[in-house]
């Protein structure tokens, strides 16, 4: 994997006037990696991508591609190709001309271009459609043409700006695996931007989670999900039950949080924050809905919550049970559908168990607004 060309952001700041769009970004992307930036709308993902592709220069810091500082190199001089959020296929050119545009500007003959375009059309399963105009293609086909056009330029780094956001769910899922497959085949570095966490988690080797210009965490998908570094990451990626409170006691890798409404609960301290949480600090504890389970035991414990059902939902693969704690704290529990009826009625009292290793204690912080 080390043969590909890596990308490094060193202490990158990007400002528009007084507005800071990207703050102190430090990212190492290995060659051949599928790297995602994940974050809510307007957090600066596109801005970072534009800095990598050369459409804007960082106000501070450096962008390195393959170890070379790219300062002063325009987008046409960088070994990157960008797939735009809106694809930006050339509407007046035929599909094959679109694909071979990068060869055309290098002066390749029409014959060469056509040949290469046909190869790429084969690869994206659009053989024989080269003579259409982009407007005559379906959304998913356009998508693939945009990918082929970018790949035709033989970039070392392919940048993708939410390329699937315009597609419907089915097609999006299909294109996800297709993209992943293409990436494995061509072996170049992909930098992928999305605000869809499912996309980021399923496709990426590494994910950077951004919040308002700041990169909160860079890790593989499993760590992001199971071991979030900040309250924002914990609340943005996947669903989570949040308990606010103070640190009551702390050991090396776990802590007891005195929650505001649910009593004392034990949780593992996320690996990025071990040693940073002190007794008396404001803290947050996160338990995923699927980490909760129904207990047969009703003795009180720091891994057990007493709650009353408000309503239940059936979603095919799982049941979602919405509950209210003793002091009105709302919670959600998800139970895998194993054939039992889990449609609990309103008002039913339940004891919920969780594994302290699946609960995460974090310093208090801003949550994702969703």
């Amino acid at each position, binding site marked *: 994997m080390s043969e590909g060309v890596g990308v490094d952001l060193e202490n990158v700041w990007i400002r528009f006037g007084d507005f800071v769009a990207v703050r102190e970004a430090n990212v190492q992307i290995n060659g051949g990696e599928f790297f995602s930036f994940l974050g809510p709308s307007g957090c600066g993902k596109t801005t970072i991508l534009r800095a990598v*592709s050369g*459409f804007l220069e960082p106000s501070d810091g450096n962008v390195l591609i393959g170890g070379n500082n790219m300062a002063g190199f*325009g*987008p*046409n001089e960088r070994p*990157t*190709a*960008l797939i*735009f959020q*809106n694809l*930006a296929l*050339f*509407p*007046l050119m035929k599909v094959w001309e679109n694909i071979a*545009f*990068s060869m*055309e*500007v*290098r002066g390749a003959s029409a014959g060469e271009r056509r040949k290469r375009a046909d190869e790429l059309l084969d690869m994206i399963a659009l053989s024989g459609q080269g003579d*259409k*105009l982009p407007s*005559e293609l379906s959304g998913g086909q356009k998508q693939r043409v945009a990918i082929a*056009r*970018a790949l035709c*330029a033989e970039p070392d780094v392919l940048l993708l700006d939410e390329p699937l956001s315009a597609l419907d769910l089915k097609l999006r899922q299909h294109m996800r695996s297709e993209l992943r497959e293409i990436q494995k085949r061509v072996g170049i570095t992909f930098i992928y931007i999305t605000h869809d966490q499912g996309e980021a988690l399923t496709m990426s080797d590494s994910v950077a989670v951004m919040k308002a210009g700041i990169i909160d965490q860079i890790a593989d998908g499993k760590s992001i999900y199971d071991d979030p570094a900040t309250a924002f990451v914990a609340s943005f990626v996947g669903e989570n039950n949040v308990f606010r409170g103070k640190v009551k006691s702390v050991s090396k890798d776990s802590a007891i949080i005195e929650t505001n409404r649910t009593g004392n609960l034990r949780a593992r301290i996320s690996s990025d924050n071990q040693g940073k949480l002190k007794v008396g600090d404001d803290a947050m504890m996160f338990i995923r809905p699927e980490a909760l389970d129904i207990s047969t035991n009703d003795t009180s414990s720091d891994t057990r919550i007493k709650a009353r059902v408000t309503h239940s939902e059936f979603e095919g693969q799982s049941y979602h049970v919405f509950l209210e704690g003793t002091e009105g704290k709302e919670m959600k529990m998800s139970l895998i559908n194993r054939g039992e009826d889990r449609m609990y009625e309103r008002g039913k009292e339940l004891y919920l168990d969780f594994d302290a290793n699946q609960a995460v204690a974090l310093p208090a912080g801003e949550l994702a607004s969703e």
Partner: protein
Amino acid sequence: MKTDSLLIRIGLGFYLVLFFTYLLGPLVLMSITAFNSPSFPQATPWEVLTFEWFNVLYNDARIVNGIKNSFIIGFFTVILSVIMGLAGALVLTQIWPKIRATFYTIIIAPILIPGVVLGISTLVFWDRVNVMLGLPNDSFLHNGILLTVLGQSTFIASYCMLVFVARLQRYDLGLTEAALDLGATHTQAFRKIQLPFLAPAIGSASVLAFLASFENYNTTTFTFGKYPTLTIELAQKVRYGINPSISALAFIIVCLTVLFALVHEVRNRRVQLAIANGAPVGAVTSGFKLPKIFAGNPVAVVLALFVAVAVAVISYAQFYDPEPAKAIILQEKRAAQQLRIEELQRKLKDKRLQKNLKGPDIFNEGKSKIPKLEEKKQKTPFGSGIFSPNNLNKVAPGAETPAPAPKPASPFGSVFDPTNLNKVAPKE
């Protein structure tokens, strides 16, 4: 209710008729005069169908020269204006978005400034430049074509810019970025991506610029030097009286305009139809498939009719000879005129006789006589030579005040026609 809507419909119909009469009436009338034989452009009375005015037009060296100059100037104005307008539009939409409002005002100003002012200032400015460069008085900077092109382009470029701005606002700058990203230079991105997108706008801006240049008078009148354009020639001609060759020219221009408009419309419809049906555009833009077009395309039918009529008229003109008919009319006219002259002379004699008989009692007699005169004059056909000075002279010595009385009853038609003077005069 029913009468209400009927009333509205009648009112609307009336309004439409009025509107189109107002809009197209002058053009139709002018086109008719091109085929009427009298040497002053007039639609009534219809005398004889003739094509001689097209001949006259063709043989009028000044008009032909004017057209030639107009085309040369139009050609260069199109080139200069389109380039300047495009540059302005690009700056306006893409380069400095922050000063857009100011820039827009500056660029649009030439449209608002009267053409006369632009003409004078062009003349003055380039004369200064000429002096500053120390060039002789007859240098290229005093060339009428150059100056006219420069002067017209100052405001025509603004028109072009508006066309381009409208198109550019729909341009996705992402396309240029995509091209750059794929390794194109800025020039390549412009030439291969943005320029093709602008092609339709360049087409319409060129047509607009050419028409604006062709019809311009205000600015050109100061700058044309030794190269009068068609509008200049026409204006000079009108000063000395015009003949229907002008109408013939107008007719040709109207026909060309209608033809181009129709062709354009037909093409548009076909492309739209094709796009609606999902066919590739290339399949429609090549080759003219007659039967298919006529299905549900009234414009094409109109176009075909138009062409057919034009062909018919032209072929008719090949063997049609209006001369005999004209000779007959001329004779009729002469006879009528002779009659009138005789009548007038007789009246004159009568009057003199009466005057001699009654002596100084002018008041009563004069009053009773004048209405009589009037009556008789109204009976004479329009376009007679009443107002020709010769006639006046003849009447004047006898009756003291006959001239003002008949004036309101007479038509204007021939009053301004200088040829009428000539026609009547030799017969005396």
